């Protein structure tokens, strides 16, 4: 294989690997922009993954077209993610609990629940979801060196990858170009003022926490149904991606347009695990497995060190509960 083809393969793999994190981080941006921090992404991704696996097996067994089944799976995973996020919303917004502890509880609970469901409902431990998403080849005929490979890396991908490109734009447009987006930013920056002009702070925060959960659910489902996955459920499969997504949100300064590049950067770190072995660059699997976590920590350090004193772009009222009567 020549260098250009390796470049294409590594980049394509990075885009595919980055997609679950990208969805999850986009959702967290929406949630955090509304002033609520949800550290439970890991748990919500697990719920999305187990939902995708179980519903995927059930739906493809009915004999419906694979693509239809997969679209339904994505919808189910989004619903499951938003339902589990509702727990966090209720505990933080209605019962006014500490958001960090509630997020941890969600991470532990979501993981435990998905493990349990997996154990109870998967009778055959070696079951594999064979009918998954397939790649659409939009850039096959382009033979310009480098440009062709670059385009193929981004445009020979499955439905979820394209959906992720679209969602980056949609989320950015929503947050910065619509009235509701303006309200969203207002309740995250200054809920008192938003309340004064008639925005229902509590209800909005409920909705945005649930939307964040839906994104994380889809992010988790991507690890099951994407063309590049093996289509198998396993305990430990999310492997910290939920936490990496939180780091990514900080790195991207809560900006959807930056988060996409961050996601693919982490995608490269993850793709290296398999690619470095295939191409014979490096073969110690344990060191390769460490890389994404070390990269995340380093990126986080650099983000904090080089941001101007205290201003990392965090919404002003992040994780501060809002109570009308206590103002």
């Amino acid at each position, binding site marked *: 294989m020549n260098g250009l083809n390796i470049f294409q393969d590594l980049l394509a793999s990075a885009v595919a690997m980055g997609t679950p994190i990208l969805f999850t981080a986009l959702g967290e941006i929406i949630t955090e922009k509304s002033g609520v921090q949800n*550290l439970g992404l890991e*748990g919500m991704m697990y719920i999305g993954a187990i939902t995708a696996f179980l519903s995927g097996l059930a739906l493809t067994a009915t004999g419906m077209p694979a693509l239809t089944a997969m679209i339904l799976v994505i919808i189910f995973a989004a619903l499951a993610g938003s339902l589990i996020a509702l*727990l966090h919303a*209720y*505990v933080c917004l209605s*019962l*006014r*609990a*500490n958001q*960090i*502890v*509630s997020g*941890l*509880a*969600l*991470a*532990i*609970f*979501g*993981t*435990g*629940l998905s*493990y*349990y*469901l*997996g*154990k*109870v*409902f998967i009778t055959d431990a070696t079951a594999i979801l064979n009918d998954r998403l397939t790649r659409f080849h939009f850039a096959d005929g382009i033979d310009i060196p480098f440009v062709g490979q670059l385009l193929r890396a981004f445009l020979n991908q499955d439905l979820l990858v394209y959906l992720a490109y679209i969602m980056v734009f949609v989320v950015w447009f929503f947050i910065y170009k619509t009235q509701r987006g303006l309200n969203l930013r207002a309740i995250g920056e200054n809920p008192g003022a938003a309340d004064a002009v008639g925005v229902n702070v509590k209800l909005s925060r409920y909705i945005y926490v649930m939307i964040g959960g839906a994104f994380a659910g889809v992010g988790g489902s991507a690890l099951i149904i994407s063309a590049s996955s093996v289509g198998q459920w396993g305990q430990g499969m999310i*492997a*910290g991606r939920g*936490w*990496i997504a*939180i*780091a990514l949100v*900080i790195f991207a300064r809560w900006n959807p347009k930056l988060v996409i590049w961050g996601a693919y950067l982490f995608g490269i770190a993850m793709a290296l695990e398999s690619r470095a072995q295939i191409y014979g660059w490096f073969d*110690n699997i*344990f*060191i390769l*497995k*460490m890389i994404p*976590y*070390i990269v*995340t*920590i380093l990126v*986080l*350090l650099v983000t*904090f*060190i080089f941001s101007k004193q*205290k201003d990392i772009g965090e919404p002003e009222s992040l994780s501060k509960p809002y109570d009308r009567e*206590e103002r």
Partner: protein
Amino acid sequence: MIKVEKRLETPKYLLILTPIVSVLVALMFSAILLLVTGEDAARAMNTIFGGSLINWQEVLVNSVTLMILSIGVAVAFKMVVWNIGAAGQMMIGMICAAGVALFAPIALRDSIFLIPIMAVAAVIGGGLWALISGGAKAIWNVNEVITSLLLNYVALYILQFLVFGPWKGVTSSGFPQTDPFPAAAKIPAIFETGRLHYGLFVALAIIIIFYFLLNKSRWGYEIRVIGEGRNVARYGGMSLSKNIIIAMFISGGLAGLAGAIHVSALEGRLSPHMNTDIGYTAIIVVWLSRLHPLVIGIVSVFMGALLFAETNLPAAGIPSEIAKLLQGSILFFVIAGDFFSRYKVKYVKE
């Protein structure tokens, strides 16, 4: 109409009652889930509690680890520094203790000083590991939740790297584990049968020491003040970054010590078997105990039983995952239940 009012002071009975009720509700929730999914809930509960009574030594073996880890987590949480990396710090402690036991000079490996030096190495290793997060937090205000959690994965792969690679024993017959430690490295069991070991007394001593340090000393007062409000502490002339660094070092050091005791008393060698969720369990213990060292001792016994159940349930035909789920739901119900100790719910006639 229903009105919610903030309590000025929480009555003492509620502070004790809400965690207990929350645990009971979580148990009910798990039982219902077991029933709904067609499992034998009564048998599961019987295995969790009855089995734990019979195997009380194994329960306490888990509690020893939990007590030390949880005290460490509580020290950090007291000043609102979120150390989620106890599992990783414990693994680094295991590695440092194993390094001493395997590679120290022969004279030391046969002496009574071996265990203390393993412990010191583990405390320093775990403490420094935690300082990666703690230092970054203190100097640049880097979010310690994420760094400490992600370092768990790095620690796990370092452990695996060592036991699959350079530290793999010549006598381990192909298994990924080190050679056994010398005899002097073993913390002995208390009774002739059973695995409960003298580490229990170390754990109890730590609980008592930290009860006094946290509740009765000047240092404990300082970190409490910092926990209640960063600005107040600053006006009081307390150094925030210095205290974050000290607290994180102690927090990680204790986790490292728990790791040393674990490999020394139970495994007698370094192997890749590790409950990587034990840091979460410690957090649940700490939150159920409201950060109180003496209560941590009691709650650790209860959670130790749940950890034991995880290994014991499959034999009874119940998915062990229910124990994990139960832990998560306990934490959820506790923080939800706290609402009633912080707020008064009143029914007011219009």
